[in-house]
């Protein structure tokens, strides 16, 4: 995984649950079907209430109507990002749309686990609330090695928490590559 991720940020509030990330009506697509997987990108974050979608102003789409990919590389959230259901379709949808990293104060545990074990997204945590520091569209850079997020639009830099216990699995690219590297399952 790239160590520096740059691009515009899409900003959300607290308790963004998995129904907002990928509404249940789209769960009939099979993520293991290559021709259907792209629809998770199309509908990523489509359940977020309009006023909360792209803060501070709201009313912005993460993925434009009829498109499969987003122009945003980084998603910024507040507290308890990804709460609600265990659907792995949630991190998959954000990743399928083309974003690479989520930066939130903290995550609901199943969402975090799905990000890491499925190798979809980097779930970074901040020591500081960024929801009011970054505006949707601001150019940002997340540097994993130095554990920082820089808002290039404002010139301010913020510290990210260390990846901790999950780092070996993130470095390997998910639970399956990790298990192969460590000899838990046969290398394929």
């Amino acid at each position: 995984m790239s160590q520096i991720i740059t691009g515009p940020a899409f900003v959300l509030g607290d308790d963004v649950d998995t129904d907002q990330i990928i509404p249940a009506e789209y769960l009939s697509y099979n993520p293991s079907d290559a021709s259907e997987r792209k629809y998770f990108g199309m509908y990523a974050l489509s359940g977020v209430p309009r006023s909360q979608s792209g803060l501070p102003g709201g009313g912005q789409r993460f993925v434009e109507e009829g498109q499969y990919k987003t122009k945003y590389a980084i998603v910024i959230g507040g507290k308890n990002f990804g709460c609600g259901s265990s659907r792995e379709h949630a991190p998959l949808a954000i990743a399928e749309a083309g974003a690479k990293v989520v930066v939130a104060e903290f995550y609901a545990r199943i969402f975090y686990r799905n990000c890491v074990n499925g190798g979809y997204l980097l779930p970074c945590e901040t020591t500081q609330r960024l929801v009011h520091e970054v505006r949707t569209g601001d150019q940002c850079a997340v540097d994993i090695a130095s554990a920082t997020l820089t808002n290039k639009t404002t010139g301010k830099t913020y510290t990210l928490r260390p990846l901790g216990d999950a780092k070996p699995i993130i470095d390997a690219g998910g639970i399956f590559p990790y298990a192969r590297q460590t000899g838990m399952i046969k290398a394929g």
Partner: protein
Amino acid sequence: MARMTLTEKIMARHAGRPSVEPGENVWVGVDILMTHDVCGPGTIGIFKEEFGPAAKVWDKDRVVIIPDHYIFTAEEKCHRNIQILRDFVKEQGLRYYYDADFVQGSGMPSPYRDPNKTNYKGVCHKALPEEGHVRPGEILLGTDSHTCTAGAFGQFATGVGNTDAAFAMGTGKTWLKVPPTMKFTFHGRIPPYLTAKDLILAVIGQISVSGATYKTMYFAGEGIASLTLEDRMTLTNMAIEAGGKNGVCDVDEKTLAYVRKRSTRPNWEVLKDDPGCAYCYEHAWDLATMEPMVAKPHSPDNKDTARNCRDVKLDRAYIGSCTGGKITDMIFAATILQGKQVKIPTYVVPGSTEVHSDMLKLNLKGQPKQAGQKSVYEVLQDAGCQIGPSGCAACLGGPSDTFGRLNEPIACISTTNRNFPGRMGHKDAGVYLASPLTVAASALTGFVTDPRDYVSGPIETGLAGVA
């Protein structure tokens, strides 16, 4: 010897270690892995991709598949997903699969005619204990966040994603971080106007939707012992709504009687918290001072008393799901609705085909109905409720033709578990979460209504749901 909680003991035993401490990461053996029609196809896809097209599951008696989410819909992809499950079950020789056998061909499937004559069970979290897959001391993983429901039986049960499920499917193992335990003690006996739903809404309202993140929620005290097994399932079911990793209750005679009757596997172990073990949080409630609660839109922690919300006008009532669609929930609701008429459209969805069957055969006291008595089903029907077939239905919205789905921006009071924006369908619909008593009372008035206005004495549910 370290003093451990129930959850720590289960993890230690499944990791082959004498003890574990909160915060440690351990690899554990899994007893049962459950998946359903929404996450099964993705899990199966990852399983085949990672282990190879000819791979076999680690134990064909321990992978349980229960289609329940998108059953009564004309959407073809949903029918296709059920077929993926069927093909996998056949290929692998899985022993426990509960097919929606009436889903054949295209269009809206005609529901089962008789709930006793179908392999279909309905909502997985209700079906798992009914079919004997839930036992004290075991580890259950499921590709659904409400898998934590089974903690009511003194086991460790938690929701996982497709990748974790695929990994466990091939290896029988998963890694878990040992959670610290929060202890919620309830003193006294449950009064007739409260159900476990009021208790869990009070807890979530106090600690917030992230208050138990990465933690175990342990529900203790004589107040919990006074609950039926089904009502305890309501508590552990909603542990996830506070961010909890799992929820647990102590095992008692009610638990043992149920599990011995349902499960064919003899080797399981009853564990409990050691005296003096460490809790990261403790709080106690007196049931006598608690009130009927609601969670207002759009969060399960947006708590208020039902009485404070009496001016809230409602468009719909909904009684169903793994949280509020059990036979005891149906008896609670029917007791209030008996001989009266609902003022707003009221949808009822049995949590399982067993619940559906019990609704047809039991009276309001949870006993087999005698000549001249009405069944729970008849009471609800006579009150004007629309009763659908068992399944997850509108609890999570689902396809637009789902029974009871909120397709308009309306206000609904519901016995379900989650009310984030869009959960039951329309993004701007407002969902009030409440107990079956409060939902039934509100259905009679069209406003959020405290059930104390209608409950005059204890509601006996007899052996409903356990016999």
